[in-house]
């Protein structure tokens, strides 16, 4: 069993600083401070490790860091803990069971990009457990002088500050998050300028997902080769997969990138009640759905999933058995994007409503063939026509559900009822 971000999970008192230090925590940070490691060297290491953004986009983390403006001005790091892509539940575990890996990762990232402040933005619904654990961990790290002024006598000063949201999926989009931290509605910004040039309060800013940040200390401590070799087959590194839906034992699994889907399925003791696998959404509800037989032997990594027409996304693997009505599932997914569209771009604001209402109409038995064409047309009109990816996220499921399960939708509009009894 590989353990990177999940290293502390099975320990007694997993979130305490003592547990983390006992397992070698903060040694990477100490080493950097002792050696005064050049910033460029850290960025190169992360680049070479091929660590990719684990929030959904899969962009090379080291490369992102290298884009930080070289100007002398104030810079910021933001850790994106606004985990809210339907089907995704990994960051919540890192935040409550391994909070110090996030703090150490943020410190190293701040150091590498030259930021003196790192904000960790948690979604509002985490105000119970995760918020308390995060605040407590930050307090512990201040007491050990891993954070603060003149850290361990190194002349390096960095502050790590937890923030809390108040309920809005869109804030997970990085520029919407900056707006939210600035105290505004979470409406995405037009890029360019990219945050690395002009971000929070107009200053150069890097935004990384929680799991990405939490991976950093382990890579720095154990080296590039160690991390790369954790991957299966041609893949590099690991990923947390959130296995949910029709499974006997749904769970979050940290596994080598490139692990075949069938193996993850086995780890969850297979499909619930020994039913047959029908479909899988492998990366959170935004990514295209694929048929069960297509994904079975596919290595779970960015490229192989692209080849079968979908994406790794956030690692939210939603598994559906043969009893699933795909029309109902799509209706539910469309409801979500309709509710969460921020309303800034017309195609998304209006289009998500059309998609949802059309699906409600079909489900109520009032749809006809032309509604299926309408769904495709509206999806195409949204896709690629908005400031941020929420529009695409609303369109992709519609197009893939229709392509893969056309007969089910056709049956519904003809017979005015689901094919699934």
């Amino acid at each position, binding site marked *: 069993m590989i353990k990177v971000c999940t290293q502390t999970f099975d320990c007694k008192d997993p979130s305490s600083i003592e547990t983390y230090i006992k397992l070698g925590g903060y040694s990477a940070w100490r080493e950097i401070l002792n050696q005064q490691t050049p910033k460029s060297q850290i960025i190169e290491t992360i680049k070479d490790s091929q660590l990719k953004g684990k929030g959904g986009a899969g962009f090379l983390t080291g490369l992102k860091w290298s884009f930080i403006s070289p100007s002398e001005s104030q810079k910021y790091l933001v850790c994106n803990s606004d985990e809210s892509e339907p089907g995704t539940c990994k960051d*919540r575990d890192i935040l409550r069971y391994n909070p110090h890996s996030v703090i150490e990762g943020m410190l190293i990232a701040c150091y590498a990009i030259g930021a003196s402040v790192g904000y960790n933005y948690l979604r509002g619904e985490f105000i119970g457990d995760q918020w308390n654990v995060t605040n407590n961990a930050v307090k512990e790290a201040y007491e050990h002088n891993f954070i603060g002024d003149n850290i361990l006598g190194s002349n390096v000063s960095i502050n790590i500050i937890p923030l809390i949201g108040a309920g809005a999926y869109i804030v997970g989009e990085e520029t919407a998050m900056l707006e939210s931290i600035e105290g505004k509605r979470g409406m995405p910004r037009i890029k360019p300028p990219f945050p690395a040039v002009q971000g929070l309060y107009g200053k150069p800013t890097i935004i990384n997902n929680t799991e990405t940040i939490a991976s950093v200390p382990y890579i720095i401590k154990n080296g590039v080769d160690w991390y790369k070799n954790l991957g299966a087959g041609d893949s590099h590194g690991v990923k947390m997969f959130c296995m949910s839906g029709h499974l006997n034992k749904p769970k979050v699994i940290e596994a080598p990138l490139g692990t075949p889907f069938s193996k993850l399925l086995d780890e969850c003791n297979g499909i619930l009640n020994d039913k047959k696998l029908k479909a899988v959404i492998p990366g959170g509800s935004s990514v295209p759905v694929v048929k069960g037989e297509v994904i079975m032997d596919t290595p779970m990594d960015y490229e192989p999933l692209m080849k079968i027409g979908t994406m790794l996304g956030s690692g*939210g693997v*939603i598994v559906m058995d043969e009893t699933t009505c795909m029309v109902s599932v799509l209706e539910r997914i469309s409801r979500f994007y309709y509710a969460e569209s921020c309303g800034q771009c017309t195609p998304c604001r209006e289009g998500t409503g059309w998609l949802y209402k059309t699906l409600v109409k079909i489900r109520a038995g009032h749809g006809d063939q032309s509604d299926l064409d309408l769904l495709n047309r509206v999806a195409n009109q949204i896709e690629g026509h908005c400031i941020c990816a929420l529009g695409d996220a609303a369109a992709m499921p519609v197009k893939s559900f229709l392509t893969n399960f056309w007969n089910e939708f056709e049956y519904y509009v003809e017979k005015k009822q689901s094919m699934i009894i």
Partner: protein
Amino acid sequence: MIHDILSENVRKEIDSIRSKFPHDKNKSSIIESLLIIQHENSGYLNEELIGALAEYLNVQKIDVYEVATFYSMFNLKPIGKNTISVCTNVSCMLRNSDQIVEYIEKKLKIKIGESTKDNKFYLKDEMECLAACNGAPMMQVNHVNYENLTFEKIDKILDGIKDD
């Protein structure tokens, strides 16, 4: 005047929130301050409170109002004392979350989005995925997660909440 609306305790908390941001970035404190104010005001906000926060942070009232109306955790109407949010997104839906909602509606004799007559419970019309997909079906009661729900479990949780 403002001191009558925002208690000393709330003002202290807002001051500590302000210290998280650059001194001239008062707007940044709005979200977290509203959460504190709402918590102290039986779970909802009103125009008076919104105005008081704007005055205290020295920002426009519209700035606070925009935030209060954009984020789903802010309530602009009185609600029941205990908030129940059932996740009904894909992963939970596949594990029968719709029946969970239906069961709670019947048990509490309300529809989703309503509060009970005795004002004890508010069943929020939750649109978001609550990030506990491997524990589906799940709900939050006052932001505490309850997972792998069954009807019996719901009875136990809701019946166990005291009237105070």
